[in-house]
């Protein structure tokens, strides 16, 4: 059963120290900023965060990293022109990094949600990121064995939720949301609006409600987010 809560603070209740937390988003598109800020307020520490990036500027994940709440980041692309909080912690040796090719990151998350034990992929074969991993030649091509990536919690940003927890997304803000929703024990979605059951055409549901545990409606991109966005450097 999906629970509808009234505040982001209530939505992230019960995330303990040491939890593995998937956070949706590619850069700021699809980043569940309200949930991350609530997690910051809750005070959980020693978190392992799975995201494509490692935070940018003074928004969301970057603030969680700045506040020393994150022990380890699992991501594909930490270094950006405005990832100064991560850069500082990484250079100081106070944050751990597991670097994963982006497609492997996505497929490992998908595999976890789909009950796949592990999979062979050609991505990364012969590179530093495959060092020490099992390899196998299949049909004349070299592959690397990769394992699923699961989490205790997934925090995602969707567009609409209906009363059954079915979700839709907006444009490229979809990115990791649908797969992270499947790979966590508890999936928490912030959405722009909640509509009655039947308010989303079943043909258009992207994430079926079976994957969603808690939903909170949050205003779309707030003034605060815009201000932070204008304060950052050029994207890379």
């Amino acid at each position, binding site marked *: 059963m999906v629970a509808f809560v009234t505040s982001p603070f209530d939505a992230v209740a019960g995330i303990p120290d040491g939890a593995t937390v998937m956070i949706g988003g*590619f*850069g*700021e*598109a*699809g980043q569940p900023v309200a949930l991350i800020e609530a997690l910051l307020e809750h005070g959980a520490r020693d978190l392992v965060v799975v995201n*494509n990036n490692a935070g940018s500027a003074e928004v969301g994940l970057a603030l969680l990293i700045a506040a020393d709440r994150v022990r380890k980041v699992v991501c*594909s*692309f*930490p*270094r*950006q022109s405005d990832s100064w909080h991560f*850069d500082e912690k*990484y*250079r100081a040796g106070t944050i751990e*990094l597991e*670097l*994963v*090719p*982006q*497609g*492997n*990151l*996505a*497929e490992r*998350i*998908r595999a976890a949600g789909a009950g796949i034990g592990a999979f062979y*992929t*050609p*991505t*990364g*074969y*012969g*590179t*530093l*990121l495959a060092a020490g991993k099992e390899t196998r030649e299949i049909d004349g091509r*070299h592959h690397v064995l990769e394992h699923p990536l699961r989490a205790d919690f997934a925090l995602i940003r969707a567009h609409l939720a209906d009363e059954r927890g079915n979700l839709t*997304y*907006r*444009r*490229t*803000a*979809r*990115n*990791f*949301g*649908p*797969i992270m929703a499947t790979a966590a024990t508890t999936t928490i979605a912030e959405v722009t609006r909640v509509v009655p059951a039947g308010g989303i055409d079943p043909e258009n549901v*992207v994430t079926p409600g079976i994957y969603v545990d808690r939903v909170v409606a949050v205003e779309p*991109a707030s003034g605060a987010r815009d201000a932070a*966005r204008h304060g950052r450097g050029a*994207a*890379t």
Partner: protein
Amino acid sequence: MSEAGSTTSRRGLDRAGIARAVARDIPRGSYVNLGIGLPTTVSAYLRPQDEVTLHTENGMLGMGPEATGDDVDPDLINAGKVPVTELPGASYFHHADSFAMMRGGHLDVCVLGAYQVSVAGDLANWHTGRAQDIPAVGGAMDLAIGAKQTFVMMTLLDRQGHAKLVQACTYPLTGVGCVRRVYTDLAVFVLAGDAQAPTVTVTAAFDATVEELRELTGLSLLDGTGS
């Protein structure tokens, strides 16, 4: 190129010239991913009648030009996190589908930048290997091995004057044996053969002779310029 003979005038193609050369070789109707940075500029030289569909790995086919003014939507960005637009017939999908599309060989061409490319088609473009540099791979490893053809665009020489087309890469690899064509300011190279006996053919040279290119690279290049 200009005959001005000034010391600042460069030899060969400028960045736009390289981008045009790449665009000319993208078959009509292709599905294409353009990597972050220099490769992104290729889109400016693709004409509507070429019917090329651009893929961005953060979950979209049918990407349009960069968005400006009221068209900027924070939920619609490209892999470089730059706001873009959607063209009629565009589609959105999640990250696992986007990389399945790539890894599964459904994209026709991927264009990437490079630190180095080896004669056997090995690509190095994600990490300098220097300890003080924070590594960031993004989708580079998936892109390198996923598309039916991987093109590289780069300057032939680095800032120290060393050739970036090499016998064997010294930078950490992104992918093994994955590059088919290399577009540079001085020449276009086609890589073929097998890993044991790779061949490199110069198919076009710009303000340089094949002999000069052999000297610059130290490689035994085949002359396919027809000149």
